[in-house]
């Protein structure tokens, strides 16, 4: 029997070169997404069968270069060096050839088996660019395959070329980028010392590549060199070159690479039409317009919001019904009135907990659909451009605005949405403050409290004030974070504005699904675990049977909650909550709210021993008017409006819910940040509520 031969392929390329479309074209839906170990850089792998080969394709992060200055570039470079893929395919945007070939020169230098895919060759043709592919291929010493990723053109040619190139007889290259006499002399000197002193490294990376990298002051490579003699030689050479060129060696080297490229291009590319204003420029004139840009952006954001939360409402309702039905069906497996712990675990813990998070799946899928559309079309970069003016004032880039806006719906997809931010410091700052954007779940709390304490004409302004406080606090927190733990030069804002593309449904759907799937997996693991823990804390220890006799079901539920770990905790923290105007009942409900914010309402209903169904502030107004009354009346009887306001304030700021914590843990890749967010926000909530309550008490006399 003939077994399939295995080939591994790495896809490299500039951001926006259509790398992902080529990846999708090659692998279809056979992909899986993960993270590179230790860093939060997305790792995508897929496979395809072609002829008698099993081809594994790894999609490297999109980079302009292979220096050690960014995580993405380091990850891409290490993958190529350490994993030694059989073929590296460099996806080149052929309508922007010079800039894209810069990465190719570095791959050539690494001496890897290289295939160049000239993607978007249709766009290049429209722009009147003609390539002498044969000649260019000879100059770069790599086969070139024209492709049109989003139309699936060039797939078989690319696969054939990959198989051809993967044969192990790939020899040494004869052409190479020449850096000019001065630099070449220094390179030769460094190479000689490397050959003598660092044989192992030289075998692994190649002498010339090492010498170039060392001269480029590449920190990652320099750290691998043990020989002081090598480092000294490099230092002398750099000093010498600096004195000749008056600039850093790596900048001169970069210039020479571009020189090599433009030399190669001049011989092989002809531009037949002089196109000054492409369609992209025209769209840009409109959407980045001084006056129109912002309104257009806001309308688009509103549409995203609308799509996510309005249209998402319907499937969300179906899912809620489904989980309700499932809970009922599972509960029916036990005789009515049964007190089985397993039943309670399954119904209240597992289905209630995980179901409560899974119902957001439609919103999340829709949101990612919208984001994928904006990203794939190229608009996202323009949105960042428009918002940058405002966001810059608070120390973030324009792009941070998008996840923060999503946060008003739900923090979980918002935190996942921060993936569009490349810069770690910006990204973490944004993640930390996202819970301050008041989410949909907290709205249910406001719907209980506001009508209970405030006269009709004040309700709107009070609600508005709560949201506003969240935004103001977020701005303050960003400022503080940027000045303390996320300090650092305001990261240079350089971003490409890629030409607009018509996104394909397939790639948008693949994007949406990949991210949605990560969310699903999260719900199945961390969130499930936290739900069970919280369930247990709410259910155990149980009061003795005797103490419950003669009580109605509401009173039984109340007794149980009071008796449980959470009930005791609520009482335990009462002294700490007193200065905020809260008693143990509110404390208990607040602890329960860490599972999910809306749990606050049902918990409060339980401690006040009212039927929880009646207490749920249902969205439809007539039900709320009749059913919600009892709990609201009790609240009004027990607390002042100031306490009511403080409850909302505390819920707004404090203790992001379990799903948020889990998501922060995943996206920052560390519990440290998740806990920092949890305790930081809780401390902030305590402080703010304390000030408001104490000041309010003084004023109220």
């Amino acid at each position, binding site marked *: 029997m003939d077994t399939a031969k295995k080939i591994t392929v790495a896809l490299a390329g500039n951001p926006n070169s259509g790398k992902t479309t080529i990846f999708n074209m090659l692998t279809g839906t056979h992909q899986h997404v993960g993270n590179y170990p230790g860093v939060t850089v997305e790792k995508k792998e897929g496979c395809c069968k072609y002829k008698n080969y099993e081809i594994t394709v790894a999609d490297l992060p999109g*980079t*302009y*270069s292979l*220096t050690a*200055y*960014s995580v993405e570039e380091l990850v891409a470079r290490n993958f190529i060096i350490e994993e030694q893929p059989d073929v590296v395919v460099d996806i080149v945007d052929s*309508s*922007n*050839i*010079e*800039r894209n070939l*810069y*990465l190719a020169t570095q791959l050539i230098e690494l001496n890897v088996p290289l295939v160049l895919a000239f993607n978007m060759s249709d766009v290049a043709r429209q722009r009147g660019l003609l390539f002498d592919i044969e000649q260019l291929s000879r100059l770069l010493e790599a086969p070139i395959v024209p492709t049109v990723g989003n139309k699936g053109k060039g797939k078989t040619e690319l696969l054939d070329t990959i198989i051809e190139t993967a044969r192990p007889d790939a020899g040494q290259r004869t052409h190479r980028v020449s850096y000019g006499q001065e630099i070449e002399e220094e390179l030769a000197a460094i190479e000689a010392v490397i050959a003598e002193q660092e044989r192992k490294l030289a075998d692994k990376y190649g002498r010339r590549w090492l010498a170039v990298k060392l001269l*480029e*002051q590449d920190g990652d490579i320099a750290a691998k060199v043990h020989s002081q003699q090598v480092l000294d030689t490099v230092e002398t050479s750099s000093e010498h070159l600096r004195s000749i060129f008056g*600039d*850093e060696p*790596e*900048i001169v080297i*970069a*210039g020479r690479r*571009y020189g090599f490229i433009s030399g190669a291009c001049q011989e092989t590319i002809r531009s037949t039409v002089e196109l000054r204003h492409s369609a992209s*420029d025209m769209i*840009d004139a409109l959407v*980045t317009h*001084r006056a129109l840009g912002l309104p257009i952006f806001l309308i688009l954001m509103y549409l995203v919001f609308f799509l996510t939360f309005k249209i998402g409402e319907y499937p969300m309702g179906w899912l809620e019904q489904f989980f309700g039905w499932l809970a009922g069906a599972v509960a029916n497996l036990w005789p009515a009135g049964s007190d089985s712990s397993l039943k309670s675990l399954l119904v209240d813990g597992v289905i209630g907990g995980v179901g409560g998070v899974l119902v957001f799946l439609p919103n999340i899928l829709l949101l990612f659909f919208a984001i994928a559309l904006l990203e794939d079309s190229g608009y996202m*970069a323009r949105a*960042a*451009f*428009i918002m*940058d*003016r405002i966001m*810059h004032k608070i120390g973030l880039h324009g792009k941070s605005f998008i996840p923060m806006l999503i946060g008003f719906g739900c923090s979980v997809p918002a935190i996942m949405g921060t993936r569009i931010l490349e810069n770690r410091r910006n990204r973490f700052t944004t993640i930390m403050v996202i819970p301050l954007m008041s989410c949909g779940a907290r709205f249910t709390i406001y719907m209980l409290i506001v009508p209970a304490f405030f006269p009709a004409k004040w309700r709107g302004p009070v609600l508005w004030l709560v949201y506003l406080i969240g935004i103001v606090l977020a701005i303050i927190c960003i400022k503080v974070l940027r000045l303390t733990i996320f300090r650092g*030069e*305001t990261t*240079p*804002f*350089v*971003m*490409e*504005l*890629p*030409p607009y593309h018509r996104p394909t449904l397939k790639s948008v759907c693949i994007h949406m699904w990949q991210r949605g799937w990560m969310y699903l997996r999260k719900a199945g693991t961390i969130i499930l675990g936290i739900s069970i823990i919280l369930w247990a804390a709410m259910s155990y220890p149980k009061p003795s049977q005797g103490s419950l006799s003669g009580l109605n079901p509401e009173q039984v539920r109340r007794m149980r909650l009071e008796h449980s770990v959470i009930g005791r905790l609520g009482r335990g923290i009462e002294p700490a909550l007193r200065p905020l105007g809260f008693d143990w009942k509110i404390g208990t409900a607040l602890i329960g709210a860490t599972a999910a914010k809306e749990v606050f309402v049902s918990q409060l209903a339980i401690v006040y021993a009212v039927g929880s169904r009646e207490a749920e502030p249902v969205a439809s107004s007539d039900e709320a008017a009749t059913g919600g009354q009892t709990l609201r009346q009790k609240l009004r009887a027990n607390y002042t409006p100031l306490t009511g306001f403080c409850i909302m304030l505390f819920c707004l700021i404090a203790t992001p819910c379990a799903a948020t914590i889990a998501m922060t843990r995943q996206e920052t890749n560390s519990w440290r940040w998740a806990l920092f967010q949890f305790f930081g926000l809780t401390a902030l909530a305590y402080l703010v509520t304390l000030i408001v309550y104490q000041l309010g008490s003084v004023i109220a006399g």
Partner: protein
Amino acid sequence: MVRSGETVKLARIEAGRGLKSRLASMGLVTDSEITVVNNSHPGPFVISVKDSKVMLGRGMAQKIMVM
């Protein structure tokens, strides 16, 4: 300061090593031709270099010396 629509040649970038290297990889090296597409104060700059549009923060744009 270069106005919208003008084309200039890059002379030198006065910035740290990481930033310089990143700009170089995006095509901003000595002698490359830059066209300023959008310079609407106080927002970021949009320039066109080697057939691609790049957005630069204002602070950074000021570090790029042209001739």
